[in-house]
């Protein structure tokens, strides 16, 4: 069973079409990335999936449940970290965790809170009011709140934006551990380096999904600049970023001892995504 099944999902705010016929399938137990610029509709899609928003049309299921009709059942199974920190700033980190953890009737809550505080490296600030925290620290508390009840599926809306590189690496290690243990993670991001860490990736623009594939397959949509120095001459050419294209190109050279160096410069994911977005704009 797929964790998420979406067909023809639309959402309008007046004249603004935030979601325009989204089709999406997310298998269970993977890290699914939703990549897009600000205003692409990523948060709207996540809100529709967690049942915080009523789409105008379409069919959508999360863990086999309708997010609106089966709201109570679904909400016990999912964790959600919104883009804004959504914390009680006059409460301490521990009090915030205790409040959201209590909502789910988490067993051994205090031990889990302690473990979450340790993971997010907030133990020394656990009793401090959240309003004094930096943006990154607030994100850490918010992430901990979403993890406490060990949900079957996690929706994380830009979870590591404004988080320092050290914790970002630790967060992605945890995301991978959770996925390995069977949790499905649906993560929105606008950071290309993070997108590469996902198992599957959807690129969203202006309320539409442009492509869904593995990051590697999306990278293969780009081009590679191949530079070969041979007998004192430099030859540069553009080839497709696929292993077979490289093999074919090099076949012509054989293993000629005169080939002195080969340099490869593949398009970055950022370049590929930008090109896709530009193509989509032109197609309009």
């Amino acid at each position, binding site marked *: 069973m797929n964790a998420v099944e979406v067909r023809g999902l639309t959402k309008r705010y007046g004249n603004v079409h935030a979601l325009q016929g989204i089709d999406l399938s997310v298998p269970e137990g993977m890290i699914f990335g939703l990549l897009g610029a600000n205003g692409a509709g990523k948060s709207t899609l996540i*809100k529709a999936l*967690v*049942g*915080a*928003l*009523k789409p105008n049309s379409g069919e959508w299921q999360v863990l086999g449940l309708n997010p*609106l009709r089966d*709201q*109570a059942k679904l*909400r*016990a199974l*999912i964790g*959600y970290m*919104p883009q*804004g*920190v*959504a*914390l*009680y*700033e*006059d*409460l301490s980190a521990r*009090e915030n965790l205790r*409040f*959201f953890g*209590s*909502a*789910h009737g988490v067993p051994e809550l205090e031990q889990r809170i302690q473990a979450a505080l340790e993971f997010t490296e907030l133990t020394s600030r656990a009793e401090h*009011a959240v309003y004094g925290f930096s943006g990154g620290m607030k994100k850490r508390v918010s992430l901990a*709140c979403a993890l406490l009840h060990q949900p079957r599926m996690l929706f994380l809306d830009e979870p590591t934006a404004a988080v320092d590189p050290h914790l970002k690496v630790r967060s992605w290690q945890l995301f991978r551990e959770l996925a390995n243990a069977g949790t499905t993670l649906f993560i929105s991001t606008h950071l290309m380096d993070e997108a590469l860490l996902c198992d599957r990736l959807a690129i969203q623009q202006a309320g539409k999904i442009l492509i869904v594939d593995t990051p590697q397959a999306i990278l293969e949509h780009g081009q590679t600049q191949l530079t070969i120095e041979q007998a004192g001459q430099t030859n540069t050419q553009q080839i497709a970023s696929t292993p077979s294209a490289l093999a074919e190109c090099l076949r012509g050279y054989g293993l000629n001892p005169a080939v002195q160096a080969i340099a490869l410069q593949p398009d970055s994911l950022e370049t590929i995504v930008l090109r896709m977005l530009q193509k989509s704009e032109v197609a309009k």
Partner: protein
Amino acid sequence: MSRILIVAKRVLTQLRHDKRLLGLSVMAPLLIIYLLKIFFDTMPKGFNNARYVMPITAFMVHFLAFLLCAIVLVQERTAGTLERMFINGFRRIEIIGGYVLGYILLATFQAMIALAEALWLFDLSYAWGDLALLFGVIWLLAITSVMLGMFISTFARHEGQVFPFIPLIILPSVFLSGLLINPEQLPTWANWLGHAFPLFYANDAIQEIIGKTPSSSVIWTNIVILLGYGLFLLTLASRTLKDVE
């Protein structure tokens, strides 16, 4: 029920942490009652202080409970914590119940100390039964105000949008609810409009309690209407508090 208690506990913890807000919401009525005393001291001898003191005390508790609850709930919406509560499984009735329960304690405390100060400063004395009724009416008005604040909060997208409701809802009640003059002296339409405000029923009950020939049927009728008003607002608030955009 347990989730109602969880929300109530969180509301009270927030109030406990926000000492400035807690201090102001308790001290402000006390200060205003004191200023009222200074003002009434300038009135000619024989001026009937009691006719105004108790309703004004009730009004201040009403105003602060309304404002505090409306702003805090709007903050919940703007900060995203209301949405997060819903997604974490809290239901509308649990959130509203938790808020009412949390603010009941504050409203009880506000009503008690405001009443005690007014009695002491203005040297007013009533039978214990009448005092209990006065406290009960002010307390019930405070709870109704919490629900009114909750209902109004659903129409405001940010804290600033709560303030236009003060001249729309709170100030007219000062003039039309019998706080300053007998509402029967008002034009008929204004008298009827006055009936739309919870302060009208609280004032009517208070005037009856402190009057020379109190009618228990008038007092209890007003208390029942006030209770019904609160339940009506609770129903409205639970319908307008959206868990889905």
